[in-house]
């Protein structure tokens, strides 16, 4: 890291960022930082304002002074892009049980799912949906006025007999409704929000977390949030891939930051590709289209899923459907038929009729009209798999508390929930709708645990150089000679991950990728922002996010190279079989300078014995 230029005052934090091009805001007077509100004191600080962060805030704020920090306006969070539904065994349409939901979650995760956590997920999903509904979430209704439910991939009755209607939904805007409902409830509960603050450091000493350091995008000022507990709920990491359903904001800021602070990340090799993204763009076409009866077809018009998963057909879990699509394309049965990486298949919803599509999938119809110029009631939708969801992330227990290692030791005051966390309820492959269940069930559990923890814990005092790491980080990126072009690094990274650490993987490609990302990380250390002022410097934000993506791609590729089997979303051409004898274990990875140290953690299989995965 570059030599830093900060000047520390004897009696106060100097939170300025001195560099060639940044406008420097001098804060030198004694305790001036307090008058400038650069230090904020709360009981609980929540980083990220999607479903998990907001639900945790809703719980924690009932008894503790809680702040939510987001680099976006909360209502822009990517939970709002979730479309198809949130599963819970309400049994409103047909018989259903939480136990069936839990089993499907375990089998869907190819038995890498922790079974105790999956049971909690399925059992608490029921009340979580009622909670949301009672708070005003406008679900679609049955003719009897109950919450309506539809089919979704991998969700079955009686341990795999046939597809079951388990997904509660609000048209194809279920995530939007959850985000709106939770944000509204947080306003009602007077939660304090810090909008457009980007997290750049966590205060973590001797296993105790006591705050975060952030960059205020509006001013370029550095703010310290001093708290008793911190929850990371920063969402996904999909922007490490070229074609993704993820928002620009999904750069894994929480996991990347913790990785750099010595915290391990769990199961990073398991990354889900959603089978149906709009060709070339990656925009998500919900599995709800197939839940309502949509069919995948190849160039011969054949319903090819009949050959791969004869029982569940198009509603098999996503890893299997995504692989089936790639196989069809590779064998020349894509729509173009040229076996190229740009080839695609058709998602046929024409037989559903205009009325069903407009009533139950209105946004999908809108996306098709806007981006493809077609009406899905008249023409099939051209789709290909799109990078969608990280099963891995910050390791936590069932209360959201972050784990230090595979032996169950915990950090104190440090929490994670939502996509950035790994409990693990999704194992090697997440089922559709279970991401929203995860946010609500485990966001709430984390919020409740934080509220209890804060009551019985003392505040760790701040030291005077608490913002130094953040200052160094910004200084290194804003001062001095222009380095490599960050855009070249980003484009190469996204192409590498897409082509070599995607749906099918092999040793040679992954070795190359790990080595190349190591070099890209070195290039990145020399990257500087070209010029600019401190107010709304989105270029600086882009560069900080790129650094996070590089670190996460590095550990993803490294963990993938390390796991010598195929399980769930991790498919190796050189090790095509699941190998429970050697690999029925979670990966933990620690960043150590230029390399990753690998360790392992036991999988809870106390309920169901691993079996071959057939659908």
């Amino acid at each position, binding site marked *: 890291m570059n030599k830093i230029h900060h000047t520390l005052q004897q009696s106060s934090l100097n939170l300025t960022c001195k560099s060639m091009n940044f406008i420097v805001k001098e804060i030198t007077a004694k305790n001036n930082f307090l008058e400038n509100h650069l230090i904020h004191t709360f009981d609980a600080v929540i980083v990220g304002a999607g479903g998990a962060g907001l639900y945790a805030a809703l719980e924690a704020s009932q008894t503790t002074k809680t702040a939510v920090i987001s680099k976006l*306006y909360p209502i822009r969070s990517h939970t709002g892009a979730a479309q198809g539904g949130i599963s819970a065994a309400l049994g409103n349409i047909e018989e259903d049980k939480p136990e069936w939901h839990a089993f499907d979650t375990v089998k869907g995760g190819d038995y890498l799912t922790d079974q105790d956590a999956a049971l909690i997920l399925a059992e608490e999903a029921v009340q979580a949906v009622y909670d949301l509904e009672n*708070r005003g979430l406008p679900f679609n209704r049955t003719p009897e006025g109950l919450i309506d439910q539809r089919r979704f991939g991998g969700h079955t009755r009686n341990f795999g007999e046939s597809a079951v209607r388990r997904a509660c939904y609000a048209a194809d805007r279920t995530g939007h409704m959850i985000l709106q409902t939770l944000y509204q409830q947080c306003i009602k509960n007077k939660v304090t929000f810090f909008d457009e603050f980007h997290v750049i450091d966590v205060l973590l000493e001797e296993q105790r977390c006591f705050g975060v350091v952030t960059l205020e995008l509006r001013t370029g000022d550095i703010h310290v949030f001093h708290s008793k507990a911190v929850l990371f709920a920063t969402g996904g990491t999909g922007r490490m891939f070229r074609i993704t359903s993820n928002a620009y904001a999904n750069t894994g800021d929480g996991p990347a930051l913790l990785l750099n602070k010595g915290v391990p990340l769990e199961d990073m090799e398991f990354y889900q590709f959603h089978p149906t993204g709009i060709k070339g763009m990656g925009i998500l076409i919900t599995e709800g289209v197939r839940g309502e009866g949509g069919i995948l077809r190849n160039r011969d018009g054949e319903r090819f899923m009949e050959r791969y998963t004869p029982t569940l057909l198009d509603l098999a879990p996503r890893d299997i459907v995504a692989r089936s699509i790639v196989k069809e394309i590779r064998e020349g049965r894509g729509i173009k038929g040229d076996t190229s990486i740009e080839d695609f298949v058709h998602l046929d919803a024409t037989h559903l009729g205009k009325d069903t599509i407009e009533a139950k999938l209105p946004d999908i119809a809108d996306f098709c009209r806007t981006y493809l110029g077609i009406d899905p009631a008249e023409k099939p939708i051209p789709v290909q798999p799109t990078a969608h969801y990280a099963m891995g992330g910050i390791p936590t227990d069932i209360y959201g508390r972050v784990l230090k290692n595979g032996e169950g030791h915990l950090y104190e005051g440090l929490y994670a929930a939502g996509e950035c966390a790994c409990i693990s309820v999704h194992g090697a492959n997440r089922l559709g709708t279970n991401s929203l269940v995860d946010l609500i069930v485990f966001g709430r559990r984390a919020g409740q645990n934080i509220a209890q923890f804060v009551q019985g814990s003392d505040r760790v005092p701040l030291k005077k150089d608490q913002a130094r790491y953040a200052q160094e980080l910004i200084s290194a990126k804003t001062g001095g000679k222009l380095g490599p072009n960050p855009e070249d690094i980003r484009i190469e990274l996204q192409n590498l991950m897409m082509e070599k650490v995607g749906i099918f993987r092999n040793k040679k490609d992954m070795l190359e990728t790990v080595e190349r990302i190591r070099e890209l990380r070195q290039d990145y250390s020399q990257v500087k922002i070209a010029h600019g002022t401190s107010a709304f410097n989105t270029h600086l934000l882009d560069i900080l996010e790129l650094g996070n993506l590089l670190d996460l791609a590095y550990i993803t590729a490294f963990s993938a190279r390390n796991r010598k089997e195929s399980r769930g979303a991790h498919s190796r051409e050189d090790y095509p079989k699941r190998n429970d004898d050697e690999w029925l274990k979670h990966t933990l990875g620690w960043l150590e300078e230029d390399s990753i140290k690998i360790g392992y953690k036991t999988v809870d299989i106390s309920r169901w014995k691993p079996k071959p995965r057939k659908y």
Partner: protein
Amino acid sequence: MEAKTEKILIRGSYMQITLEIQRYDPQKDTKVFFKKYDIKINPNDRLLDALMKVKQTIDPTLGFRKSCAHGVCGSDAMVVNGVERLACKTLIKDVINKDGSPIKIEPLRTLPIQKDLMVDQTRFFEHYRQVKPYFVNKEPIDKKERIQTQAERELFDDGTKCILVRPVIRPARL
């Protein structure tokens, strides 16, 4: 999709366009001004892809908000050729001017400009809070859903679609 994924697109379908973008940096400029940027782009790309291309290849200091890139989060609302739009829900081919003049891009009107195409939404969200935008009822959380007919649900459907962009004249999505 990023603006620079050129190699997966068909070369022949590229076209040259000019964006005329309103610029303003509160720490440097005393007033707003317009600047022109020439880029090559596929006409089926989004206007957001074009803005990303300007930012990534010509001027990284260009300021605008963005996130979901498919019209559901509401971050990238702006005025395009005089009309309020979401940059990610606007295809280039739909905003090319027939007379060959540049595509003119300005920040939303009626809100204070923060930087370039970014406007200050603080007051909008203050107003949002003032209307008590949450479900108000006195019943405690139950262990069951409340019965609501499909017709009752339909009554307020339009209001549920709003993505809080602020400048809209139409109620829901741009």
